[in-house]
């Protein structure tokens, strides 16, 4: 009896370790994904925290292999909820929304960038690299939401097409289409700015 209890406790502990490892591995990328969609660090942190809690409370006992798909699905739902709330808030705070768009326009004027890997260690190189990363992130953030989700899940989270389709609640064909369009849009946008990733 004691042995059975020990085995069960071990299995639970293993699951906790697996969940911890999964969350630790995914949290920074999840935060970035949320930032691309929600535009602010605060909202993104809230979204990631919500998604982590929901995964842990509702699906913490699931096999670790299911965590990526479940977490992405939860995260996207949390992000959509946050966007809906932002939309309602922005309706009442038009001043704030106009300020945000002005800020984005200013950033666009700086976008004549190239990647120079040889000079990456110099202060100038590091500065250029940071600007390049910022430009790439800005273009990713500008993608339509579904294209961005598909692109990030497939190529950043390295989920396969069926997992991505399950997480997005669409067909595998739609995932391929979204990914292809996202890649083409990104390639065109970065090329126009002289950036070769």
């Amino acid at each position, binding site marked *: 009896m004691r042995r059975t209890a020990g085995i*069960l406790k071990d*299995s*639970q502990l293993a*699951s*906790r370790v697996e*969940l*911890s490892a999964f*969350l*630790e591995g995914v*949290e*920074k*990328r999840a*935060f*970035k994904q949320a930032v691309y969609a929600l535009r602010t*660090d605060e909202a993104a*942190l809230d979204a*990631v*925290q919500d998604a*982590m*809690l929901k*995964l*842990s*409370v*509702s*699906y*913490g*006992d*699931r*096999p670790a292999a299911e965590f990526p798909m479940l977490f992405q699905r939860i995260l996207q739902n949390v992000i959509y909820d946050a966007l809906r709330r932002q939309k309602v808030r922005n309706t009442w705070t038009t001043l704030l929304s106009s300020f945000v768009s002005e800020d984005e326009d200013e950033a666009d004027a700086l976008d004549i960038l190239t990647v120079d890997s040889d000079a990456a260690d110099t202060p100038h190189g590091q500065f250029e690299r940071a600007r*390049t*990363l*910022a430009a*790439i*992130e800005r273009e*990713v953030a500008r993608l339509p939401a579904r294209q961005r989700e598909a*692109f*990030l899940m*497939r*190529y*950043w989270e390295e989920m396969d097409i069926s997992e991505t389709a399950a997480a997005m609640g669409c067909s595998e064909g739609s995932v391929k289409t979204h*990914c*292809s369009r*996202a*890649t*083409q849009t*990104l*390639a065109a946008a970065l090329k126009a700015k002289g950036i070769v*990733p």
Partner: protein
Amino acid sequence: MNEQEFARKVAAHLSASARELDDGVVERLRAARERALAVQRPARGLSRFFGGRVGLRVRLPAALRPLAVSVAILAVVVVGDYWATWARVMTLQEVDTALLIDDLPIDAYLDAEFKAWVQQESRS
């Protein structure tokens, strides 16, 4: 460069960017992770070996769920009908009791002339 190669290079840049998060953000993510782990849904005994949610599924297999819903609806209809019948019987019982204990004989209510007389009396 094909599409996949390009996409993976972009993803590598995004990973580099994610590694350079502020310490404050990293700390808050760590705190959020620990909060999430503290409320992790526990694996419940043997249910873990059946992939979770075994309790509900054993008690109510998917194939039986429509039947259970039908039984529940039928039970609601039967109970509703019983209640309606009981309420009607109680009302009739009250009327019968009132008639039986009244000084006026029951035959008086069946007499058309008596009814006409009551109406006439009420008018005058």
